[in-house]
C-alpha cells in the first residue's frame, strides 16, 4: 500500500529531473554563467536526493512487503548495531562534504560584483520598480502593464487568457546590454521587496535604508520575466519585472533615445499599451528631470497645463501611482486607504492637498516629492479634485508646486 505512495513520489521526482523547459517543471538553466552553475548545483543535489531516496524507500518497501505479520513472520528482537549506526552517520556526512565544495565555489562567484561594466540601481516601491542607470543619468519607473492591471481587478470580467503575458508585463522594461557585466544595487523605497528574474539565477531583497548588490552577464538577447518575491503588501503579486537584453549597439541606441527623450513620456504609456507586442519601450524622461524634481528647470514650470491636459495626464499618473491603494473608483479601502471620492482633503484647500501628496503619510503613503515631476503632481491633484464625483473646478499648475 505504501509502495504506491513511494512510487508516486519517486516517479514524480524522476519526471522533474528529465523535464525540459517546455513543461516548466524544473528550474531554468537561465542565460548567465551563474544561473547555469546554480542550475547544475540544483541538479547535482537533486540526483543525490533521488539516489538516497531510491535506497531508503526501496528498503522500506521491501520491509513492508516481506516483513508482515500476515506472512507469518516471527519478529526479530535486535535493537542496535553500533557498526551500522556509525556507518550511516559518517557516510551522509561525507556526501554533505561533497556537496559543500561546489556550493562554496558558486556562492563566492555569486558575490563577486567586481569589474562591472555598468551599474543599475533598482529601487522597490509599493508596487513598482525604479531603475537608475547610474553612469548614464537615465532613470524610470516600471509598473504592471495596463492590460494586465485591468484584467486582474476583482470581478473585471476579463479572461486572463486573453491578456498577453498576463501579470508578467510592464510598461517600461529594464533594457540591458548582452555580454556586459551588469552590477545591480538594490534598495527599498518603503518596505522590503525582492527582485527576481529566474533566468539571471538569483534574487535579492531590496531593503529600505540599505544597499545590497548582485550581478549578471547576460549571454543571449531576449526578454526575461520575473516578479517581486518578498511579500510587500496588497499588490505584491502585481509588480513584475521585465528585462530585455539587447546587443551592445542596440542597447546604445536605446540609451541615446532615453537621453534625448522629451519629458512628457508618461502620457504616452496608454498608446504604448495598444501596440506593446513588439515590446519597444517608449522613450522616458531623463533622470535630470526625475531626480531633481525638487528644483525643476524654469522651462518646465513655465509650461502651464490646460484643464483638459491636466485631466489626461492626471489620470495616467493616478493609474500608475495612486490607484493600487485608492482604487480605480477612488473609493479606497476602508480602514487602510481613504477614499478620494468626497475626501475632506481633496475638497478642502489646495495647499493641504499638495502637502499630503508631496510629503506622504508614513508608514502607509510614500512622499511623492522625488517620485513625480511638478507637472505630474499638478495634474494628478487637478484630476483628483475633479474626478470620482469631486468637482472643485480647481486647476493646479506646476508653478504652484514649486512654491511648496
Amino acid at each position, binding site marked *: 500500500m*505504501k509502495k504506491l*505512495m513511494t512510487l*508516486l*513520489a519517486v516517479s*514524480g521526482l524522476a519526471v522533474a529531473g528529465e523535464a525540459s523547459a517546455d513543461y516548466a*517543471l524544473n*528550474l531554468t538553466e537561465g542565460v548567465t554563467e551563474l544561473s547555469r552553475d*546554480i542550475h547544475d*548545483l*540544483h541538479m547535482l*543535489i537533486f540526483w543525490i536526493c533521488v539516489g*538516497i*531516496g531510491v535506497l531508503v524507500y526501496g528498503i*522500506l518497501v521491501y*520491509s513492508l512487503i516481506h*516483513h*508482515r*505479520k500476515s506472512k507469518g*513472520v516471527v*519478529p*526479530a*528482537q*535486535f*535493537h*542496535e*548495531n553500533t557498526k*551500522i*549506526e556509525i556507518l*550511516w*552517520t559518517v557516510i551522509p556526512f561525507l556526501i*554533505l562534504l561533497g*556537496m*559543500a565544495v561546489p556550493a*562554496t565555489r558558486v*556562492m*563566492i562567484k*555569486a*558575490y563577486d560584483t567586481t569589474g562591472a561594466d555598468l551599474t543599475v540601481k533598482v529601487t522597490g516601491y509599493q508596487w513598482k520598480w525604479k531603475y537608475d542607470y547610474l553612469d548614464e543619468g537615465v532613470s524610470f519607473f516600471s509598473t504592471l502593464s495596463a492590460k494586465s492591471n485591468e484584467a486582474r481587478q*476583482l470581478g*473585471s470580467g476579463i479572461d486572463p487568457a486573453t491578456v498577453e503575458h498576463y501579470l508578467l508585463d510592464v510598461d517600461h522594461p529594464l533594457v540591458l546590454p548582452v555580454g556586459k557585466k551588469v552590477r545591480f544595487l*538594490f534598495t527599498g523605497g*518603503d518596505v*522590503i521587496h525582492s527582485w527576481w528574474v529566474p533566468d539571471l*539565477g538569483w*534574487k535579492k*531583497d531590496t*531593503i529600505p*535604508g540599505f544597499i545590497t*548588490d548582485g550581478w549578471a552577464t547576460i549571454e543571449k538577447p531576449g526578454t526575461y520575466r520575473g*516578479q*517581486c518575491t518578498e*511579500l510587500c*503588501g*496588497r*499588490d*505584491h*503579486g*502585481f509588480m513584475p519585472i521585465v528585462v530585455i537584453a539587447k546587443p551592445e549597439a542596440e542597447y546604445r541606441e536605446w540609451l541615446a533615445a532615453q537621453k534625448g527623450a522629451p519629458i512628457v513620456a508618461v502620457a504616452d504609456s496608454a498608446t504604448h499599451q495598444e501596440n506593446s507586442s513588439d515590446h519597444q519601450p517608449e522613450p522616458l524622461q531623463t533622470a535630470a528631470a526625475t531626480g531633481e524634481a525638487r528644483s525643476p528647470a524654469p522651462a518646465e514650470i513655465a509650461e502651464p497645463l490646460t484643464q483638459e491636459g491636466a485631466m489626461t495626464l492626471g489620470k495616467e499618473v493616478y493609474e500608475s501611482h495612486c490607484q493600487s491603494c485608492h482604487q480605480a473608483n477612488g473609493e479606497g*479601502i476602508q*480602514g487602510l486607504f481613504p477614499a478620494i471620492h468626497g475626501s475632506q482633503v481633496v475638497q478642502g484647500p489646495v495647499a493641504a492637498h499638495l502637502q499630503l501628496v508631496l510629503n506622504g503619510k508614513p508608514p502607509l503613503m510614500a512622499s511623492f516629492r522625488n517620485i513625480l515631476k511638478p507637472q505630474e503632481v499638478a495634474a494628478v491633484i487637478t484630476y483628483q479634485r475633479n474626478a470620482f464625483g469631486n468637482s472643485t473646478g480647481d486647476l493646479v499648475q506646476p508653478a504652484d508646486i514649486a512654491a511648496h
Partner: protein
Amino acid sequence: MSVSAIHDDHHDHGPAKGLMRWVTTTNHKDIGTLYMVTSLIMFMVGGAMALVIRAELFEPGMQFVDPMFFNSMTTLHALIMVFGAVMPAFAGLANWMIPMMIGSPDMALPRLNNWSFWLLPFAALMLVSTLFMEGGAAAAGWTLYPPLVLQTGAAFPFTIFTIHILGVSSILAAINIIVTILNMRAPGMTLMKMPLFVWTWLITAFLLIAIMPVFAGAVTMLLTDKFFGTSFFNAAGGGDPVLYQHLFWFFGHPEVYVLILPSFGIVSQIIPTFSRKPLFGYSSMVYATASIGFLSFIVWAHHQYTVGMPVEGELYFTYATMLIAVPTGVKVFNWISTMWRGAITFESPMLWAIAFVVLFTMGGFTGLMMSISPADLQYHDTYFIVAHFHYVLVSGAVFAIIGGVYFWLPKWTGRMYDERLAQLHFWLTTLSVNLCFFPQHFLGLAGMPRRIPDYALQFAEFNAWSSVGAFIFGFSQLIFCYIVIRCMSGRGEHASGEVWEGASEHGLEFNLPSPAPYHTWETPPNVH
C-alpha cells in the same frame, strides 16, 4: 496500598459535574482533552482559511477576495496552524500521555496547567477577531516583517498581544513538562528508559523556554517602533529592518523543530508497537534529537540567504544547516531498521506513521536542497518552499498527531474507533495531500513566487490540481471529526487495556485499563 487506605474517607475519585469541571479542572487528562479539542477546532478554522486561499488560486484572475484579505488569510492560516493547532495538539498529547508514560499521577504543577490552557482559547479568539477590525487582520505574513507589518491597521497591537499571550501559555506549559519529567518519574524509570515521546517533549520544552522570550521581545520592539517612536527596525532612525529577521528566525527556526520533535516521538512510539519489535537505536534516537535541538539554534539565517549577508555568513549558515541532515537521517534509518524483520501490521496508527516516514523524508530532501545557499537564491520565497514546509508540517507534524490520536484514542475513550472509516480517512488524506502539495514543487521551480493571490497563465494547471487536492484534504477531515466524536460519545467496540497486540511491552500507558481512570498511577508502578 497503604497510601490509599489513609485517604479513603476523602478520596476524590471522579471529575466534578457540569461545565465548571472544565473551567476549574487541574486533572492532566481533562486538560489534555481541552487542548486536543481546541486544537481540532483551530485546525478546522485554519483549514477553512487555507481553502479560501486555494479557492482564489484555483484559476488565474481574481475571483473571490481582495488581495489584502488574501494576505490576511495566508498570515492567519499560518499563525493559527502553528500556534492554535499543532502546538496545542502536542501540549494535549503531552498532558494526556507524559504522566501515564512515566508513571506519575498527574503533571507536577496542576494549577499552572489549567492556567496555561485557558490562556489559549482567549488568545485564539482575539487573533480571529482581528479579521473584523478596521483595516483587516495582519497581512504581512506570519513572520510579521517590518516595515510592512507596521502598515497594519487597528489589528496590529491585538496581533502582538495575542503573540504575547500565546508565548506565556507555551512557556508555562514547557516549564510544567520539564518539572514533571525531571521529578515525577516512577521508581526505576531512568532518563534513558523514558519513552521517546517523553524525551522529544523534554527537549522541545527547553527549546520553547529559550525561544518564546526572543519572539516576544522582537514583537514588542515592533510595538514600540509603531507607537513609541523607537527605531529598532527603521533605517531612518539608525535601525535595521533585517535585525528583526534575525531575531524572528532565532525564534523561528527552533520553533519549526518544536513543531516536529514531538512528532518524531509519536512515530517512535507507534512503529515499534506495530512492528512487534523494540525501537532500533534508542540511545542514538535520543542523541539525534538533542543534536537537532542544538543545531536548530545555530542555523537561523538560512531563512535569509537573499538579504545580502556577507558571503562568509552565507557559507557558515550553509554548512551548519547541511549538518542537520545527519541526525535527521539517523532517525529515518532507525525507524526503517525498526520495521526491518519485524512482524508488521497495518492498523491506522501505523499507516499514518509509515506515511510520515515517507513524506517527511520527502520534505527532508527538499530541505537539504534549500540548505545549499546558491541554489536557495532561486528557491527562496517560491512555491518550492511552500511545498517543502507543507511536506514537513502537514505530512510530518499533522500526520504524526493524527496517528497519535488513533493510537491513543481507545486508551482515552475506552472505545475502538471505526477502523474502516479510519482507513478511508487515511487514504483520502494521504492522496489529497500529495495532490495538493506535490505540484507546488514544480510551480516553485518554474518561477511562481509564494504569497501571491494571482499568477501568470503558465502556472494554471498545477494550481488547479493543487486546489482540488486541498479541498479533498480539507473535507476528508470531517471524517476524522466524526470518528473522534463517535468514540468520545461512548459508541464503538470496547477497547482492551492493552489496546494493541503486545502494546503493554512498549509503554506503561497500555498497562492501564481503557478508558484510563480519572486518576492513574496514584501508586507508582515499578519499572524494571
